[in-house]
């Protein structure tokens, strides 16, 4: 590429990740996914396709489900981010994670963090989802193991448990 081009400097970025304030230096165009994985050691979010089609890098950015491979880190400055590592409490699985385990919704595990975050986002908006809502809410997350049925079942089960409480 053009060698005469000036390099951009790293800049301070601060945000809240899973409830903790983080301050680091990064190039503004670094992908949020890479900063989470490489700088913060949060390797739950995975890189699948790197182009926003598979959903395995899903995180919540100010409560919105996003593909972290498509977010320049500068755009996350000042935001609150939740990754899969922030879904369990004190090392205990959330009811949604337990439902995935119980229903066989996780097999190889690559898609699972993204599936769980997409499901969290769905249940926030739609606490009693119909199967069509679950299918739509998770349509941006690809799984090559389960055939999806166990995942839909897990989300439906978690929703029922939540409502029963």
């Amino acid at each position, binding site marked *: *590429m*053009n060698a005469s*081009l000036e*390099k*951009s400097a790293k800049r301070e970025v601060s945000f809240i990740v899973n409830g903790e304030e983080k301050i680091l230096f*990064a*190039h*503004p*165009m*670094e*992908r949020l996914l890479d900063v989470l994985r490489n700088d913060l050691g949060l390797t739950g979010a995975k890189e699948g396709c*790197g*182009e*926003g*089609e598979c*959903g395995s890098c*899903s995180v919540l950015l100010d409560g*919105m*489900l*996003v*593909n972290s*491979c*498509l*977010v*320049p880190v*500068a*755009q996350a*400055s000042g935001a609150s981010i939740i990754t899969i590592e922030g879904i369990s409490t004190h090392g205990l699985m959330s009811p949604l994670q337990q439902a995935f385990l119980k229903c066989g919704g996780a097999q190889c595990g690559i898609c699972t963090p993204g599936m769980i975050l*997409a499901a969290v*986002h*769905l249940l926030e908006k739609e606490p009693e989802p119909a199967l069509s809502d679950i299918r*739509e*809410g998770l*349509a*941006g*997350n690809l799984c090559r193991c389960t055939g999806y049925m166990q995942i839909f079942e897990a989300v439906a089960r978690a929703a029922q448990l939540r409502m029963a409480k």
Partner: protein
Amino acid sequence: MRADPADYKLVSPRNLQAVLSLLADEPSQWLPIAGGTDVMVLYSAGKLPNRKLIDIWGIPELRQIEVLPERIRIGAACTYTALRRHEIISRDFRLLALAASWTGGIANQNRGTLGGNIANASPAADSLPALLVYDAELTLISVRGERRVAYRNFHTGYKKTALAADELIQDISLPRKFAGYASHARKVGARNAQAISKVCLAALGQCADSVIRDVRLALGSVAPVPLRLQETEHLLNGNKIELSLINAARKSVMKEIRPIGDIRSSARYRAAVAANLVAEFIEKLAVEGTYA
């Protein structure tokens, strides 16, 4: 090859004026980035030609939806999620709300923007045929001032637009006169979520005593630009719906479109599906149009 983030500059101006000043100072050098669902894909693959990007995601003026008595004005950086959740859009501009629901999965709808879709100018974009049938008008803004452009004149060729080097799309305005029309939208693709369309249709029209009035047909993925089917509309308007008219419309659609064969579909398949989708709408209009 993967891009090196150190080779790219990204600035986040605080307001619209600062964005426009940058665009004016070095025309064609700066690429606006909103939700990044197109730009970041090219960037990650090392295929983004621009090295300087302006972040417009946080500019409040571009994120508003303003409802006026005669029009609705949608800020260019409004997301598909914002369109889907908006009461008036989901009620009176169903074709746009539906297209928004087809655009990628939820994560992409949370970030992808209508203005981005327009500027990116893909002939396969699902929301663009809806803008054509709703007579959308764009406000283009620069330090020189603002100008209005009819959306039907915006795309000048494959991925070419009327946007000047120092201009930004500020908003998309739709007249509120179609609430009583029958509408129909269909996307034909490999799967409903995520897949890019082989063909998509947005259609509006009125019908009384089986006679068609003000029919509006637009198709995606059948030409270098999102295409309004003016000849077919002309053929249909003022005529009574019957089999011979539907067959004539099918022929007219096939004549009017310029589909290509690519990785997603063949030209022949696209032509057949385009004609079927228009025929399907006319049949629907015969049943539903009288309620309008």
